[in-house]
């Protein structure tokens, strides 16, 4: 089987949705339509492929897809060469999967009948579905907990890449926090995201071990002006004032690591990913009055307008008074978190999660919060410090924490994840 054929082509199911994706046909292997797209400004159809190469990694300002499978790994080898070899293999496989092809060069059903297939097969017939795979390196990859420098990387750890400080109310579970590496897989079809992670995990055996993973649905932020603002599990629009892909100046200021920043010799053009699993205490929230809910968030539940305003995108005016008191309560989430108060901005890219129920009949649900920033200290940490008095804290618990440095994008078809760090 020609490895350039997509999964759909393989089954002879080429329809209108993929015509552009396979513009170059069987012989070429160039994903014509996809390559021509600028991820920052164009909105590909939900089925299409997102370019795998570019100045920045895909999956950050790429218009947020609907589904997430996030996985954090511990590196189990002390051998740097083995780790590098795996990163190269991962890159190759990720490139294929992002284009809608099988994980391995042979494919799920075309191999030796006595060998395990080199692709697990559950994505056969599915389009690329906007799959992005974004890699990050955690602080413990550079220096182990006991101070070890097993990969000769300690000197290259950027100063901001440290575990997040403790915040009041944290209820972090170590088993679902931290990690040496992470992969953020996002797609518009959950099966495509799960397929990608599953195959990468399999190829990593002997080198990495899954530390924790999280599934997410229903993106809770829009990262492009072309996207409507979604609702989180509190029922409120979330991410109205998020940084958007179209705002290059803001992205350069708040999201991308710049030349001259600590670690920019390998991280320039990259970004720091902060992940927090935030359990929402759904039952108390659902029994709170509408007024209480709106005053907790600082927006109306319907339109998403700042309290005291009319429309979603009306400015957050923290000085506005209604009947002699602030329209937006000073303890509301929007009041405390908005950029004017936080004096910084982050690119949010979180997802809702429901991990069944908690054994007591309550929904184990919430927001898997993901944010990208140029420096965690002046990004998430600064925002979160301002949320100490947030009325929303009564309804949430942070149950995990992780931070990763995501290197810049891949420059061409031969580049590999981690080259700027290990190369």
């Amino acid at each position, binding site marked *: 089987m020609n490895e350039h054929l997509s999964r759909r082509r393989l089954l002879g199911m080429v329809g209108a949705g993929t015509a552009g994706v396979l513009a170059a046909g069987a012989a070429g292997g160039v994903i014509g339509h996809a390559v021509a797209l600028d991820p920052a400004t164009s909105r590909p159809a939900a089925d299409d492929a997102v370019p795998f190469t570019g100045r920045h990694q895909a999956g950050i300002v790429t218009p947020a897809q609907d589904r997430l499978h996030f996985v954090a790994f511990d590196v*189990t080898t002390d051998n740097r060469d083995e780790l590098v070899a795996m990163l190269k293999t991962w890159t190759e496989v990720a490139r294929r999967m992002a284009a809608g092809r099988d994980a391995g060069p042979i494919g799920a059903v075309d191999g*030796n*009948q*006595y*060998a*395990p297939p080199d692709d697990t097969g559950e994505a056969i017939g599915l389009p690329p579905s906007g799959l992005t795979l974004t890699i990050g390196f955690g602080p413990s990859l550079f220096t182990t907990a006991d101070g070890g420098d097993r990969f000769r990387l300690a000197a290259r750890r950027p100063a901001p890449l440290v575990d997040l400080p403790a915040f009041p109310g944290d209820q972090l579970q170590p*088993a679902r926090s931290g990690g040496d590496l992470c992969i953020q897989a996002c797609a518009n079809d959950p099966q495509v995201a799960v397929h990608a992670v599953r195959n990468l995990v*399999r190829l990593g*055996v*002997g080198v990495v*071990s899954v530390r924790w993973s999280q599934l997410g649905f229903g993106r809770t932020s829009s990262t492009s002006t072309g996207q409507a603002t979604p609702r989180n599990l509190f029922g409120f629009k979330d991410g109205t004032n998020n940084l958007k892909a179209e705002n290059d100046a803001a992205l350069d200021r708040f999201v991308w690591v710049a030349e001259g920043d600590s670690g920019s010799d390998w991280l320039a053009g990259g970004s720091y990913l902060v992940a927090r699993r935030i359990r929402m205490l759904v039952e108390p929230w659902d029994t709170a009055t509408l007024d209480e809910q709106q005053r907790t968030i600082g927006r109306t539940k319907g339109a998403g307008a700042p309290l005291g305003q009319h429309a979603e995108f009306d400015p957050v005016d923290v000085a506005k008074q209604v009947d002699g008191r602030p329209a937006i309560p000073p303890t509301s989430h929007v009041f405390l978190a908005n950029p004017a108060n936080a004096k910084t901005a982050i690119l949010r890219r979180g997802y809702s999660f429901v991990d069944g129920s908690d054994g007591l009949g309550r929904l184990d649900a919430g927001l898997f919060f993901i944010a990208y920033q140029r420096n965690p200290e002046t990004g998430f940490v600064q925002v979160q410090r301002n949320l100490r008095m947030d009325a929303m804290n009564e309804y949430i618990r942070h149950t995990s924490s992780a931070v990763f440095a995501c290197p810049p994008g891949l420059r061409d078809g031969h580049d590999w994840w981690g080259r700027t760090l290990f190369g």
Partner: protein
Amino acid sequence: MPVRDRRPALLAVLTLAALTTAACASKDENGGGKATDLIAVKATDEACDVATTDLKAGTHHFEVTNKGSKVTEFYVYGEGDTVIAEVENIAPGLSREILAELPAGDYEAACKPGMAGDGIRQKLTVTGTSAALSQDSALAKAGADYQAYVQSETAPFLAQTTAFVAAVKAGDIAGAKVLYPAARIHWERIEPVAESFGDLDPLIDGREGDQEPGQDFTGFHRIEKALWVAGDVSDMGPYADQLLANVQQIVQRANEVTLEPLQLANGAKALLDEIATGKITGEEERYSHTDLWDFAGNLEGSRKAIDTLRPFLGKFDAKLVAEIDQRFAATQAELDTHRSGDGWVTYDQLDQASLHALSDSITALTESVSKVAAVVAGR
């Protein structure tokens, strides 16, 4: 674990007659195990005297006599301590015989008084070209080698089960608890073969709740529950008798089984799957928590199956062999961190991090071992 899950994987390859015909045909010439001589080995607590150490390439018949005071074992090791042949549990005063097919090369014979450590080693030099194995005969030999291994395990399995049953019937709870994992480790080493007898396996190794409607819960695990949960085996006599009768029968049948090379490859993986699905989870020994004995047995059995294929695999995919060796060693090292006395710690003493590390090593090893079948089939 009852046979339902495993047997199809083994039986499926029986249809591969065409693939293995050549291997079978050459078996009588090169792999049948016709001994050319009889080499006396005198094992004592301090020495391992092998009568002849310069040998011609071919099949050799060793007769090991234990003149020492401790139970001993005898091994023939190839390059990298590959086990070419082995016989365990030779009681003081007894003799055991063992066949070893030795192509030209350097080997070591080893006696292990007390059945521990690296043993007392003796170099063996094998010269000559007549027995150089062709590609197919190397595979044919694998089946015979594995059969010899199965036979070397069924004997102590039967002996230990007999002792276990006697202890249960005598009401010796402490003694039976010691013998239980010691008997089962032999079973676990050859589980794919033993499980291929679908009528007997559920009676011997079925877990509580796995029985057909109306079927009694019998076998090792029935007695395990009486020993560890009830602490009373006064009503276990009939179960003990039945267990021994079934074990005698399965041993007899297992001794006759010769696995084809692909079955060996699949069996090696099946044993690792047993670890991943039954031992890492603590399901197999849910009352005694002696899962790590079973883990060790499955691991050794898998390694042995791969060892029999090694002369062949080495020629066609030396890199895979190296990776498999490294991962077997890593898994064994991980397991050995949980040694306690003559055995292992019980499952309930393992913390989550230990289980995670054991699971990782098995997952990685299984990925490597899963590639063996295609090499065998593709020759």
